[in-house]
């Protein structure tokens, strides 16, 4: 059995919070914290951080990062507009960025993230998050070479939201995929922020296309989810199958003329409810709304 080297560092010993460092593969580690998972790539040039959790968790997350490297954070990538993925941007850069102003960390996100944050009616509490993003992209993939490794950022249109990105660390062979994939809970289809069930499935199928499993469908490319344990391609398959099957059931019920209330009463996710956390009704309702939304 192949298992990772368990050089697990307990940052909680310092801060009284549950923050853990888990080496994944190559130059990439996963930091498990109260806001979900942060991906970190370290090397001589500095540090890449994917998803920064919340401002409140930043001291603990930074303490965890410092067990891996004392170099400055020079790249931050946000996989979505969610506050628990980018709320720690400013705080982490303040704590771990370069003291040289010319080396200010670049904060990468799809342009739809910024569009959502500055749209009329956007929450004032997110002004800081909007200000932190200084390197939006619209052509996928955006890529750069850092620490000798190609880092490729792919846009996943209309999935969890309309601004989702997944990040491939090509030499380390690790994907950091944000909330497109949450192995222990139902995905959040944020229809109000441009998410859709078909976009989510397209994104999951793209992850499966990019991941290469090791012998007998184990290991190979590792996949760091937005929340939950470290995974590989086989785990994404189970999750993709779940979303596909529930989507098909809801679609069939819509074809039979059932209303949203009738669909929810039919409990089309009931054989998955014991396995995945989160509200089945919220998930089913999002699928229903996504499938019945008028095409523009």
């Amino acid at each position: 059995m192949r298992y990772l080297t368990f050089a697990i560092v307990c940052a909680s010993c310092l801060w009284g919070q549950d923050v853990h460092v888990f080496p994944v593969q190559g130059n990439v580690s996963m930091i498990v914290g109260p806001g979900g998972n942060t991906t970190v790539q370290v090397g001589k040039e500095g540090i890449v951080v994917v998803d920064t959790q919340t401002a409140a968790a930043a001291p603990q997350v930074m303490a965890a990062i410092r067990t891996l490297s004392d170099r400055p954070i020079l790249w931050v990538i946000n996989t979505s507009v969610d506050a628990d993925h980018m709320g720690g941007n400013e705080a982490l850069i303040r704590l771990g960025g370069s003291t040289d102003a010319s080396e200010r960390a670049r904060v990468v996100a799809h342009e739809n993230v910024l569009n959502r944050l500055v749209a009329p009616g956007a929450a004032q509490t997110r002004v800081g998050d909007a200000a932190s993003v200084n390197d939006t992209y619209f052509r996928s993939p955006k890529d750069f070479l850092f620490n000798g490794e190609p880092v490729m950022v792919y846009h996943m249109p209309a999935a969890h939201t309309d601004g989702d990105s997944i990040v491939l660390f090509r030499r380390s062979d690790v994907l950091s995929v944000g909330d497109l994939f949450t192995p222990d809970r139902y995905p959040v289809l944020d229809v109000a922020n441009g998410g859709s069930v078909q976009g989510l499935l397209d994104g999951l199928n793209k992850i499966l296309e990019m991941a290469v499993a090791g012998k007998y469908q184990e290991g190979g490319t590792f996949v760091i989810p937005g929340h939950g344990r470290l995974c590989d391609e086989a785990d994404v398959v189970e999750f993709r199958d779940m979303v596909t099957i529930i989507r098909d059931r809801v679609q069939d019920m819509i074809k039979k003329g059932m209303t949203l209330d009738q669909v929810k009463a039919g409990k089309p996710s009931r054989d998955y409810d014991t396995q995945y956390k989160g509200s089945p009704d919220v998930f089913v309702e999002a699928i229903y709304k996504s499938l019945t939304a008028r095409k523009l």
Partner: protein
Amino acid sequence: MSKTALPMFATMLGMSLGMLLSMPAFAQVDFSGEWAPLYHEDAPERLPGPELGDYTELPLNDAARLRADSWDADRISVVEQYQCRPHGSDYSMRGLGNMRVWRDIDPATQRLTAFRTHMLAWDSERTIYMDGRAHPPEYANHTWQGFSTAVWEGNMLTVTTTHLKENYIRRNGVPRSDQATVTEHWMRHGDYLTVVTVIDDPVFLTEPLVRSDNWYLDPGQHIGIFGCEHAPELPKAEGAVPHHLPGTNPFLREVSEWYGLPYEATRGGAETLYPEYRQKLTGYKAPPKCDRYCTCTTLFDCNLR
């Protein structure tokens, strides 16, 4: 004691101490060797494979039952990632279970640190740690074989396995979740090995599932390469996942009709495991003759309809 007797006494004492020190500190049985499976238990399920819709003897909950009802065997072919998907370490003990077992010995202390196994099916290899290490944290990756540690209970080895990937309890779609804990009790009786497996799965089982499997020592056994390479086998739409919508699986009653069993009994559930359930089978009549898997004792002698 004479002067000449003293050195002899010291030598004897030293030899005795040496013998004592070379004895294992705990009860230890060596499981090393080549083991061939005996299929006298649950042979039709384990060799040709379980019938669709056969959930007998499984303490399933409703979620597991619907998951199995929805399962379509086409998924194994259409979804490429399923083509080379191995059995979990709990299920691999039941099918194509030719097994090699060997020991890891710490050269400095000569203490047993792990048993290792190699199974014919999917060349699966497992390490059962005996050095007292902890299981990985919950956020660690899961594997098909899981993470196993063991302790001696007398001459029985009790193995605890966590961090399993999602797999199946029966390979007709009955699922076993990645949250399951599997406990095994390994017992050797001369040239025979019995492993009792207990699956605790809070996701799909209402009570632990207990099964047993047996092997015989077969020193001449040669386990070959299993080998598997996935490839597109059928034209398919992108992301297609074959499954039956609830209430549409046409195969669920076959097992009931072929074996003359009440349909309700084939649906499984904890109640069906206990002798009291027989009182509910008053209308049951055995078929006049067996015509399916009647002489199933090895992989190649099962009579198919």
